[in-house]
């Protein structure tokens, strides 16, 4: 398996224009974060200032075992590596749609 998918996440503005701080959860509920460019994200209404918004992050699915998916992130997570495991309900085949600010 080597398919594209979209990981549910929450984003806040990053350190540069067009960059966002991304926060998501691994399969065991532990949070991880990374920086990603707007190209790698879909979000109906990208946040500004102190706002945050729900978004989806483009990832590659490397392996599937039951409801667990091994994915590759577009950038290395700050807390661990580029490969990590998430649950099926955290992934969507289609990117997020609609206004999702939280």
């Amino acid at each position, binding site marked *: 398996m080597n398919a594209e998918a979209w990981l549910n996440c929450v984003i806040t503005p*990053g350190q*540069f224009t067009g960059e966002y701080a991304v926060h998501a959860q691994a399969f065991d509920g532990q949070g991880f*974060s990374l920086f990603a460019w707007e190209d*790698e994200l879909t979000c109906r209404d990208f946040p500004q200032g102190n706002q945050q918004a729900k978004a989806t992050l483009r990832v590659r699915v490397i392996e599937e075992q039951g409801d667990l998916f091994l994915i590759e992130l577009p950038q290395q997570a700050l807390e661990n590596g580029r490969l990590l*495991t998430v649950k099926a309900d955290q992934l969507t085949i289609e990117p997020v749609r609609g206004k999702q600010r939280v």
Partner: protein
Amino acid sequence: MILSNVELHKALDAGRLVISSEPQPRFLPAGTGHCPYDTHSVDLRLGDEISVPQPGTYAYDHTQPARLSEHLTKTAVKYKISAATPFKLEPNQFVLGVTHERIELPIPTSGDVCLAARIEGKSSRARTGLLIHFTAPTVHPGFQGRLVLEMINLGAAPILLTPMMLIAQLIVEEVRGIPRRNDSQFQNQTSPDGVSGT
């Protein structure tokens, strides 16, 4: 295998490597200006933003899961720079910059070769003490975006950072084989980073 300038042009034409805006000109008669392509690298320019981490009463614990990316953003100040208002990088000061160019290294759906890259400094900048990256030069296959530069001035005098200045060079390499899963990183894993705990 490192791509020569000719192979870089071929990769750009084939879409295996995307640099936007594409550095120009590809060739230049000797002595008539600057060509961004060296024999096996292409120059990149500095973008117009500098992010400056601020000191505070905090410490980073890389062993703890946290919203570190958000924290890094909140504890830094972003500066817009221009030719008229460059950023003065003081000796021993650490800042983040970003390349003007956006890089893309698509992973092909067929074939057995893809591209990776490394960002490196330029000797002329290094002679003044400027490091534009440390420990993180690799651009992975599949990457798309601008490259973040971890810059520090190890010299004795301030260095002016101006947008569009030549700041780095990109060295592009072929990766033999299309990246796929590594079984050992998934089987028997006990941690969320996919690394086996046994």
